[in-house]
């Protein structure tokens, strides 16, 4: 009797614990069900869009209610900061969870790893289906560079939403004052930076560029490619054992260490743009998107004095890095048609024009030819900025770093060794050797 009772109480305790556990783990679904529960309409679907806190997200957010009204699809927009957004997408997709339907994704960084993992839905079949994609979507309107950047190993894994690339912002007034011509080659660029430092007697630094290890590849890549080098040679071996690589490292680090602000080794876009906006440097090499922060009337002392030109050519021509952000569909989405409807709406010619008028660089050529858009580029800075971006899109190389599954680890090796040269603890030759060896090791892992 005693034993039976004990057994019963034990069993009931375990049952209750299991129920509690189910309750804890089920909480998420309970709230979601109750959220949807309000509408009995079977056609109303909810899709979750995981976005980064990015100018594109801020620009498109106000239009989302329009989409919801038109289609009856509810959009649950989840906004996180860049790395947190990446962590969230990785974890959700790894669990094969249907919690995300559409997500922003940087193909040049996580593209290969996510594609190998099977996280991306193939969008080709949606594009080809005339029922899902009417002709007014104008697929051929997308520029080749950014559209190809959304294709990985032949498969279309996303649609581009914004294009950017590293450019040179410069102070027109200082260039005129010190009689500096617009640099045509990388050597001219170094000379221009040197002239600024000499003629301002060190009061103004020549150029601000990235030094923070994970972020260096983005700006350094153009220097590397302009030596006539792709990241890999035709046999798939890394190209850092070529003399051009040493020259690229030398040029980049000379700019940073000799003619850059002190502590450039730790700088990312945030610091470089602050320095430029405060009038402490004559040039800034960073993303074209930075135009917004250096022309922000609350922080900038140099509005109206800013010009833009592409990073100049090297001995191997001019191959600027072009980077596109895209939105992709999760392979595990349970609302794929609704997700596609959202992607199609967000990347339609009409919407991309609307966003372009708010300063989002469009990947569609029709936007750039649009008279309304052209008219919106009123001041000289905006005009030069647009011209530079068009140049980048036409000549761009979409590989921000050597493509690898462990892309971030590869870029860290490159950044760390470039930093060592900036700090004077390695020569450019030693750095090139170390990168050649280090990156090859990471790729083998």
């Amino acid at each position, binding site marked *: 009797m005693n034993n039976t009772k004990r057994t019963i109480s034990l069993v009931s305790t375990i049952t209750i614990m299991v129920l509690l556990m189910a309750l804890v783990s089920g909480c998420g679904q309970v709230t979601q069900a109750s959220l949807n529960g309000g509408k009995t309409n079977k056609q109303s679907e909810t899709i979750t869009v995981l976005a980064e806190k990015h100018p594109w997200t801020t620009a498109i957010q106000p239009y989302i209610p329009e989409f919801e009204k038109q289609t009856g699809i509810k959009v649950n927009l989840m906004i996180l900061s860049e790395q947190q957004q990446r962590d969230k997408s990785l974890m959700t997709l790894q669990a094969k969870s249907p919690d995300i339907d559409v997500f922003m994704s940087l193909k040049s960084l996580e593209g290969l790893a996510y594609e190998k993992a099977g996280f991306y839905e193939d969008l080709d079949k949606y594009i080809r289906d005339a029922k899902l994609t009417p002709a007014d979507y104008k697929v051929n309107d997308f520029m080749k560079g950014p559209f190809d950047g959304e294709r990985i190993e032949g498969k279309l894994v996303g649609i581009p939403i914004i294009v950017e690339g590293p450019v040179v912002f410069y102070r027109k007034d200082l260039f005129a004052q010190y009689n500096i011509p617009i640099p045509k080659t990388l050597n001219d660029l170094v000379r221009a930076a040197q002239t600024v430092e000499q003629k301002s007697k060190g009061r103004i630094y020549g150029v601000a560029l990235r030094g923070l290890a994970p972020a260096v590849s983005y700006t350094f890549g153009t220097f590397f490619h302009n030596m006539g080098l792709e990241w890999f040679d035709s046999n798939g071996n890394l190209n850092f054992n070529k003399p051009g690589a040493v020259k690229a490292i030398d040029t980049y680090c000379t700019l940073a260490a000799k003619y850059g602000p*002190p502590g450039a080794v730790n700088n990312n876009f945030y610091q470089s743009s602050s320095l430029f906006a405060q009038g402490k440097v004559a040039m800034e090499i960073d993303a074209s998107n930075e135009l917004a922060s250096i022309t922000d009337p609350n922080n900038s002392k140099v509005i109206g004095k800013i010009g833009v030109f592409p990073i100049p050519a090297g001995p191997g021509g001019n191959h600027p890095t072009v980077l596109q952000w895209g939105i992709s569909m999760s392979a595990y989405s349970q609302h794929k048609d609704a997700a596609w409807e959202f992607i199609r709406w967000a990347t339609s010619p009409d919407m991309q024009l609307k966003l372009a008028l708010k300063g989002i660089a469009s990947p569609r050529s029709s936007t750039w030819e649009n008279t309304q858009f052209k008219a919106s580029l009123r001041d000289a800075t905006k005009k030069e900025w647009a011209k530079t971006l068009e140049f980048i899109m036409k000549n761009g190389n979409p590989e921000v770093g050597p493509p690898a599954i462990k892309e971030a680890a590869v870029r860290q090796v490159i950044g760390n060794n470039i930093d060592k040269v900036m700090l004077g603890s390695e020569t450019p030759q030693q750095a090139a050797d170390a990168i050649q060896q280090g990156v090859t090791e990471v790729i083998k892992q």
Partner: protein
Amino acid sequence: MHHPRLRKAKSNDLIAAFLMVSPAIVFTLAMIIFPIGYALFLSLTKWVPGSSVTQFVGLSNFRRMLGDHVFWLSFRVTMILFIACLLLETIIGIYLGILLSKDLPGQKVLQAVILIPSIIASVAIGMMWIQILDPTLGFANYLLSIGGLKPLAWLANPGTVLQSLIIIDVWQWSPFMALIITGGMRTLPSEPFEAALIDGANKWQIFRFVTLPLLRPVIMVAILLRSVDLVRFFDTVYIMTQGGPNNASMTLNVYSYLQGFNYMDMSYGSAIMLFLLLLVILISLVITKLRRRMS
């Protein structure tokens, strides 16, 4: 069957007892045991994005750890930060704590003000110090220039980055230590102090032979709490330097995060995390032992 009512009550009590502790058990299982178990599982396998196939690789992640010089570097950085910050924060914390326990004019306001750094989110603190320590635009170098000193690169120099991080952490967390110690001071009996005064002890002697021994248990608790946090040094480093320049400020926690999430190697990241867990357990064991021996 002699006391049926009593027995019934007993077994009901048992159910009630289980019911009452079950949330705690569920919580412990779900939030502590499961994650540690899963980390252990991950560290023994090869984690591949998108694959649910498990491939056991034995101890190869731990073997890789032993041969990884960045791992050893981050271990060293973690220990330097731990020892330097703990020492400074304890000394400043005791000093501030005793000061705050005196009934000085404006004491309440002072107490509120110096606690601000410990309340603000670390991310905000990181962003703020990036601006203060900026070599060109920052306030820190402006102060140095007023004093006629040479500007420093602070976070951007491998030689000064750790000192900079220590300054920030001491600024942020000494008040927290002080708060615990103030609380302790207020509970101390006044008799020993009066006795010491009557015996003609000077201020230093009172501090050394009365205050400090009486405060010891409180100080040990403060040290224990702070140590565990310090070994897991993450947020300010991640915001300000991401372990740079050239890994000079890489802590174990940051390195593990980078490996796991940025480099998509959850297995290796978990192995480093387990090492960190072991380190935390070891350090708290040592401190607990010390505490027992002292009391």
